[in-house]
């Protein structure tokens, strides 16, 4: 079961961050908070994703079999790329302008 968790955790974390930032945007627009919160959320997501990646690469938390180790690290990198690609708009776009 731990090996399965290693395989799924990087992208599930991305999904959690994605949902959290989307939700934060809704609350932020409702309450009139500053957009810096979203950029902070972006930074936090990168930090968490990095922590997972380091954990998967470590001897303590990483997988012992080659297949799961390599696959989980690849998924860790995919998770990081997903965070960078999908959250980057918080830096460039205004948050609450409706289409």
């Amino acid at each position: 079961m731990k090996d399965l968790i290693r395989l799924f955790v990087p992208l599930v974390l991305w999904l959690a961050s994605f949902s959290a930032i989307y939700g934060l945007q809704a609350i932020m627009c409702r309450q009139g908070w500053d957009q810096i919160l979203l950029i902070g959320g972006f930074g936090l997501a990168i930090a968490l994703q990095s922590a997972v990646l380091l954990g998967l690469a470590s001897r303590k938390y990483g997988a012992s079999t080659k297949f799961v180790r390599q696959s989980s690290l690849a998924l860790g990198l995919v998770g990081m790329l997903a965070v960078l690609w999908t959250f980057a708009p918080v830096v460039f776009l205004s948050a609450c302008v409706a289409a």
Partner: protein
Amino acid sequence: MNALRRHRALTRIWASDPGWRGWFTTVNHSDLGRMFLLLAVVYFFIGGILAMLIRAQLASPRSPFMGADVYNQIFTMHGTIMMFLFAIPLFEGLAVYFLPKLLGARDLAFPRLTAFGFWCYAFGGSMLLFALVAGIAPDSGWFMYPPLSSTLGSPGINPDFWLIGITFVEVSAICAAVEITVSILRYRAAGMSLSRMPIFAWYALITSLMILTGFPPLILGSLLLELERAFGMPFFQVELGGDSLLWQHLFWLFGHPEVYIIFLPAAGVISTILPVMARTTLLGYGWVVVAAIALGVLSFGIWVHHMFATGIPHLSLAFFSAASTLVAVPTGIQVFAWLGTIWKGRPHMHLPMLWIVGFFATFVIGGLTGVMVAVVPFDWQVHDTAFITAHLHYVLVGGFVFPMLAALYYWMPHMTGRRRFFKLGETAFWLVFVGFHGTFLLMHWVGLLGQRRRIDTYDAGSGWEVINLISSVFSFIMAIGFVLVLIDVVVNAAVKSRGPRNPWRAGSLEWAMPIPPPAYNFASLPLVTSRDALAASSDLAVRLAKGEGYLGAPRQNQRETLTVDIATGTPNSIVVYPRNTALPMLMAFVTGGMFLGMLIKAYWLVPLAGVGIIAFALRWVWTLGHRSDLGPQDAGHGLMLPYATEVEDPPGWWGSVFLLLANATFFGCLLFGYAFLWTVAPNWPPPAWAIASWPMLGAVVTGAILGPIGIRRAIGAVRREGSPALALGITMIGCACLILSGLSVLMSMPDPTRHAYDATVWVLGGYVLFHTGLAILMTGFLVARAKTGFMAPGRLGEARIVQLWIDYAACISLVAVSATFAPGLLS
């Protein structure tokens, strides 16, 4: 014992009941897989006939063929049947039939659950079919947007058939997903580690996990919309604090992953068949697994791309547009892995390969138009036009139907034991392929010219006439092709031309058994040392038939198989399966009574059916387990293993874990819906917030502490060979406190029709009451089991399952009460 005597002994043990009775009492995965596949194909042809009616209507402008009312039912039922009654059940059927054979097991984890799932599908589908025949079918489109589908837009019973019938069918999907997940993780051949799993099993595992997390949002949405329609609880009515966009969120939280739930099994089929057709192994097995996992999870982050035209903020559009383009990357990795596999092998253009080539040509076009509509400005231009209809058919027909036809022709010799004699299949392929592209390639064009989807007619002079006519003509060519496939299959299955055991010279385990397969699959269970076990050991089938694998000696007329460690595939217990029984069908029938009661507003039937379900469920679980310790048993090759009833994490524990995953997703979606309404819906705050009382808060905290502590102490007492009675009593008191808190939540908002907040509080309270009631029932069951000698230090699996449910009830009670009263406290 020689191979023939072993075969006769095992057949006697595993055979279904003879005659018509066998249809209703079978719990064998091969029988049920065939039944799933057959019924799904029947629905495919029904859905196909509806498609032909649509094309007949659109072939000419101002067509008098049918009126708008009928047309609305036809296109709604076409989409509904193809998505819910054909595609998902076909995957379930394929997985139910083949997974144990691919994994080297004798059956799935919970045979009775497979049967229950099938009958739920059959009964739920019949409800919708009845509605179609009676002319009262759903007519709001297959995604049922309110207010069109609410009582404001559809006061009749039509949408109720959809909401209730589809939810009933989804019970089947959840059952199958639990079944498939546990089977893949635990019911494999000895030595089959994660890295040696057949690639189809990886895809099926990811798909099942997606069903467990993707279907609950739709079940929730259907429940909320039905509550609004039946009792006036205003979840989607703007003037009372609801929001119709909530439905769109819940629907597409399901709907987009659904596309990948349909595509991934097909990708698994291609990854299985393509290397065999190319006489090589799959290129980049590890990368394909990584890509499939990435695709599965990323697909949950793109649901809003179906809502680009709803006026959401620019930034949200950017999030979902970026995520939508991202999914093209893992899809591309898989496509390149398949192309590389063809490149490194020596491909033979057999009929399955022909369908795979058809898949490539079609699916890649669908994928590319998918990237186009992921780009917001383009999506705005083509939103709700025939371009989208064309895109989704390229993805779903190209990405699912074509690979499934490849699977049909690849595995037909396995299912029938016969070789193909007549060669109608090649002609059928070209008719379907040319017909499909002639129909839908043109539909992109007419969509770009502005033809909206779902229109029942159009005016002459719009510039769409010729395109629609050609499209309709080709659609009938495609239909002839599909009929020819059916004739080809029936004729070839009927002709007695025996085929060789492994006609494709494949390396996977399903070919290491006699064909057509016996009810027990393998006479003895294999030890796997490589990914392509049969390729590594060409005499494997003979050795297994001779009983040289595990569990080769039939014991006490029991149906036995092995479970293994998830990661390494090391055998760790022996499972004894239940015998043939009508219990699953009867339970599905009674469950159907509950849904029927809701549908026809005969609410007295609902609790009555509920009591019936409880009675059957108790009967179901009571037959499991032993009253004494049986100890380790000989599994063959000197391996001594305990029965699964004597381990700490029996299959039922794993089943509960994954069922709770689906359950928690449902609860999470409910909280999401609540937060969405609170932050986005216009008419908030409500007239009044619920106010917490100290006794109520005390009850929930006490219950959430006593319940989990009580069950743990009960397990500890049994482990020390003491009596669990006192501890189970404490558990009961804890659950009773949680019931009180659930009731208090309900009573805090006496009128659920006043505002969406009040209605949400009622659903939260009802959810708590349902789960705490379930926890009390389970605890009562444990009391009875303890009294009758089923619980012992070595037999604690059942208690650990109950512990999971009590912990869950405690957690959701705390969260539900907090969510209910937090706004009142904060304001």
